[in-house]
């Protein structure tokens, strides 16, 4: 057992730091913070990572991965999160790409992977439906074969960033025979196809990131099917482990927690800093102790993956604990903001308002409720662990 960094790891860390310090400049940060320029700023940032060759650390090297060791991945993640740099939009790079390079045809790999790497295509995920949430396999969006096309009818929901997306990867029903998992097919659908309609869903964080996507007689070439018809569930399941691991967001929580500590040493009550309040200190350490453990749980999972294992049911543990940590930290920020948590986005400067983070804290807190629901609710994750790990 050894957690020290070798000299080559320290050199790598310097290289990563130098890149972030230069590439993640203040001008880009301003554009990311502005709703009007958000999409092009995200693409701009991802293209900078792409130009550096660091856009897809988890991909196999032959498809554009970095061939980093688990230590290097850990260093990269830590340095990214410490600077408050957002993770890449996961739908293309983290979620659909592993399905394409694992189960796709040579043509599909050549068509889709380069444009995912370069962020020329923006992807979204078509899994959940109005009638299929935790019970994903009961999905009803239907695809009927017609010549060289499938004709798709139905609706997907909670589709994050569908309003920006060029492509959507979907689970659709191609058969109602046998077990409900058996009649599902994995399709890649061009968002510009006639018959697709995106309806915005405004969420309790006063933002618009979620959508409903309707499909009305949408024609999808059979060439855009991943693997075999009716085998889509198998491919999707392989993908879900990647999704869960990326949802955990441990490095970002670490950074969020440090920020809470800084704020707790600035916010006062009766002239006394909150970080000196015994009750608040207990709330801090209740979370920090779990977070310190979770950092190493993640490292243990990384080490398993590095030695050839795939992220399996332990990714469910990371998802449950990781999202619990995120929500706990969001809760502390709300406590720190006190009544300023109620402030809606407005034109006043922090100076005029008298406070800096109340509105942002609430947005994170409100949208943060989603984390224990998406990617398979935490209750579903517990079912998975009970079955796959405990054999219950």
């Amino acid at each position, binding site marked *: *057992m*050894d*957690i020290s960094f070798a000299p080559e790891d320290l050199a790598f860390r310097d290289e990563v730091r130098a890149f972030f310090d230069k590439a993640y400049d203040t001008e880009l940060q301003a554009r990311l913070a502005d709703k009007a320029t958000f999409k092009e700023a995200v693409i701009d940032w991802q293209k900078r990572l792409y130009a550096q060759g660091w856009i897809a650390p988890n991909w196999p090297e032959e498809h554009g991965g970095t061939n980093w060791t*688990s230590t290097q991945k850990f260093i990269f993640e830590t340095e990214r999160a410490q600077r408050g740099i957002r993770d890449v939009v996961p739908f293309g790079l983290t979620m659909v790409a592993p399905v394409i390079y694992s189960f796709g045809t040579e043509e599909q790999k050549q068509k889709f992977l380069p444009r995912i790497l370069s962020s020329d295509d923006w992807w979204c995920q078509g899994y959940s439906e109005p009638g299929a949430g935790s019970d994903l396999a009961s999905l009803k969006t239907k695809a009927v074969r017609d010549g060289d096309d499938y004709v798709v009818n139905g609706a997907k929901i909670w589709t994050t960033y569908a309003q920006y997306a060029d492509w959507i990867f979907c689970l659709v029903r191609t058969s109602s025979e046998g077990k409900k998992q058996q009649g599902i097919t994995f399709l890649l659908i061009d968002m510009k196809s006639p018959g697709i309609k995106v309806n915005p869903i405004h969420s309790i964080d006063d933002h618009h990131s979620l959508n409903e996507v309707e499909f009305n007689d949408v024609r999808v070439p059979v060439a855009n099917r991943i693997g075999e018809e009716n085998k889509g569930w198998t491919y999707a399941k392989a993908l879900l482990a990647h999704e869960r691991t990326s949802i955990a967001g441990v490095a970002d929580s670490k950074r969020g927690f440090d920020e809470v500590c800084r704020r707790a040493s600035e916010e006062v009550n009766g002239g006394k800093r909150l970080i000196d309040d015994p009750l608040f200190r*207990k709330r801090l350490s209740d979370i920090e*102790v779990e977070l*310190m453990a979770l950092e*190493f*749980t993640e490292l243990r999972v990384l080490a398993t993956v590095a030695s050839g294992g795939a992220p399996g049911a332990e990714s469910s543990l990371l998802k449950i604990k990781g999202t619990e940590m995120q929500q706990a930290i969001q809760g502390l920020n709300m406590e720190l903001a006190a009544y300023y948590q109620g402030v809606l986005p407005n034109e006043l400067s922090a100076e005029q308002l008298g406070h800096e983070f109340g509105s942002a804290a609430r947005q994170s807190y409100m949208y943060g409720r989603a984390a224990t629901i998406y990617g398979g609710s935490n209750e579903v994750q517990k079912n998975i662990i*009970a079955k796959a790990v405990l054999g219950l």
Partner: protein
Amino acid sequence: MNFDFTEEQSMLRDSVARYVQDSYDFDTRRAIASSDEGMSREQWQTFAELGWLSVPFEEEHGGFGGSSVDTMLMMEEFGKGLVLEPYFATVVLFGGLLQRSGNSALQTEFIPRVIEGSCLGAFAYLERQSRFELADVCTRAESSGDGYSISGEKVVVYNGASADHLIVSARTSGEQFDPQGISLFLIPADAEGVSVSSYAMMDGQRVANITFDKVAVAATHLLGAEGEAMALIEPVVGTANLALASEALGIMGQLNAKTLEYVKTRKQFGVTIGSFQALQHRMVDTFMAYEQTKSLLYRAVCELEEGADSADATVHALMVMVDRAGKLIFGEAIQLHGGMGLTDELDIGHYAKRLMMINTTFGNGDYHQAAFDALRYG
């Protein structure tokens, strides 16, 4: 960065695991617990022959030169078998203090005896009023001729009933709570003026209250510099906490495994109770608590071996988690075993009681959390 064990470490763990499985079953353990000494000197000799008592000591004293990782692996296996023999009191505490004391004469005299199994040691540090504050010491050591004269009382001395030698903390200067002014002395348990009252604890241990009435100690039996004992005690308590946490992890793993087996076989309403989702989610919670404890233990061991500045805070964090996770896990183990969980016949309650004792040895969860808060938040 890796979490692999070396071949030597794996062999050591396997050797303890095999022994515990083959020669330390629950009935054997029960018989040892109800014997007069609450431990088996025969087992202890076997531990010595297998080389286990030499593990943390330096090679110049005949030791194996092992690291915290070796101690962790052994203690985890001892935990699984609820081993009663005083490895913690004799090797980790008594031996650990000797090893760090810098007193080479005492090291040369006693470490080989500990290793060969002929010296049973104890560390007498608790007093009636002291609870978890190691610096709360009223026992006094006055200068007397060439040496010292010790008077006072120590309570709940682990292995105090069987130990032939004691390391005692006593005040050579300062007031009751001063961290400065405390010294450590090595004293034969049968020295004149020492009287031992032993009693049994819920986890099968025999401990003792020990009074010291003008006990004469030679200056050569002082460990470390006079008045500076806290600098010696604190790092040893740090490694001792790791050892306790490792033992606790072994126990938690057993409790989870036994409970899992039980819910898979126990039938009610015509089905195994493990088929109920309400119980499945609780089993997942205890599984996660175990994994999180293991992660924090690995973190603490790695940081301590590395000499990281954060190591002290991490050990406190670990002990907070051992307390919380331990209570969750033994509570659920008893609950899910139903009425059987309350029987003395089953091992579940015995694992629970050892966990409870571990969580009072060098501070409970609240104590460690306050210590962690002070280090982390000022």
